[in-house]
């Protein structure tokens, strides 16, 4: 697929011809705005203007919408898209669009021990703060896994965070994402040394209800407070990642932090050196939990697709 797309890029690289520009899907016009209007309908939330500004695409016979459709068949956030991006400048913009990088799944990476923080930073930056899934396994070189950058860009759409046997990723990096109040449904931190009783305690102590400033407080007051909390947090997500709950704004951030714990449906801390007290108290905060994994077995059986497990050669 990637080779087919790369081969077809020669058509565009050859430059626009008058006949082909008439057949292009892009609306003709003197100014750039007119050309962008149709693109905005195709992809309303990604960098359509940036694509439309490329004169390279204006002469393409297939048109941007068809290329977007073709690229959408490639695995999202995969190596094929990266290869397409290397074909030419037009494909670099098109395949590098954030709409194709909302899911990063490197569990089946052929050489996870080669993954570095810089590599992940590039992938996370491509998502443009719209990441939905983030899954990495067996990447021993990672120190932060680009998680602080992820928290800085925004995690308002992050539904799944899955780190498997990334042994050098620090707890501070994980906490940076969790403090940014992601709407997580799935949290899997398997064989991660940073997951221990203390980490569970931090998870558990995140407040989940709004202390009413005046009287009993109505649900509307709580909801508006939540909105303020999220707004204030997202306004300063990068700077506020390490902030405590000392100030008034800090308490709002702590409040926002605790909201996502109750929404978790999948929680896996396989291989974690945790004890009963911390685990039981944490489970009390997860009323919607559907899948729970606290095992010490080196392979998963229930919770979805298993990452590769590399065993010592016989």
């Amino acid at each position, binding site marked *: 697929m990637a080779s087919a797309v790369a081969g077809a890029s020669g058509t565009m690289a050859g430059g626009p011809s008058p006949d082909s520009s008439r057949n292009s899907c892009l609306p003709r016009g003197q100014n750039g705005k007119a050309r962008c209007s149709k693109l905005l309908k195709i992809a309303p939330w990604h960098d359509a203007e940036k694509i439309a500004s490329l004169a390279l695409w204006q002469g393409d016979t297939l048109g941007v919408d068809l290329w977007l459709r073709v690229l959408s068949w490639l695995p999202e956030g995969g190596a094929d898209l990266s290869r397409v991006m290397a074909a030419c400048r037009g494909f670099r913009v098109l395949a590098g669009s954030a709409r194709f990088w909302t899911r990063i799944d490197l569990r089946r990476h052929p050489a996870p021990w080669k993954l570095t923080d810089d590599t992940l930073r590039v992938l996370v930056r491509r998502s443009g703060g719209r990441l939905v899934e983030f899954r990495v396994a067996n990447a021993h070189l990672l120190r932060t896994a680009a998680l602080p950058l992820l928290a800085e860009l925004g995690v308002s759409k992050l539904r799944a965070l899955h780190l498997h046997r990334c042994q050098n990723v620090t707890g501070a990096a994980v906490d940076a994402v969790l403090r940014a109040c992601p709407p997580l449904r799935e949290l899997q931190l398997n064989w991660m040394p940073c997951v221990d009783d203390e980490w569970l305690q931090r998870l558990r102590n995140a407040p989940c209800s709004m202390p009413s400033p005046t009287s009993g407080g109505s649900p509307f007051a709580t909801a508006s407070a939540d909105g303020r909390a999220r707004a204030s947090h997202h306004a300063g997500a990068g700077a506020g990642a390490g902030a405590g709950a000392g100030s008034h704004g800090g308490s709002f951030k702590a409040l926002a932090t605790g909201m996502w714990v109750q929404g978790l449906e999948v929680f896996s801390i396989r291989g*974690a050196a945790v004890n*009963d007290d911390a685990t039981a108290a944490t489970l009390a905060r997860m009323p919607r*939990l559907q*899948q729970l994994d606290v095992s010490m077995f080196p392979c998963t059986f229930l919770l979805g697709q298993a990452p590769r497990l590399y065993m010592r050669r016989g």
Partner: protein
Amino acid sequence: MANAVAVVADELMHGVGCISDITVRAAADHCPRLRQFNISGRHTPSMAGLTYLCERARGLTHVAVVSCPSLASLALDGGSCLRGSLTVLTEVTPELQAQTGMYVGVA
């Protein structure tokens, strides 16, 4: 496969911790929507705790108790003593190993 990473003896690297009936009962009390539960490799959960979990979490469909010596009796009846519709995984079969890719990378 020359670059295969050896990942063995994880218990020695991370410690073990203690997960017993307290956690099982907490899951039963606080997580009524629980459907899948994996406690493989933990040595202390008892049959009483698992029975309590099955009574409280009515939506429970899958339980994995591989390498749980205290729950060895489940291997005899396949978990039918808990609930008829429950799938209890008590041992790793070769088919399961192949399905889960457990030995991918072995020369």
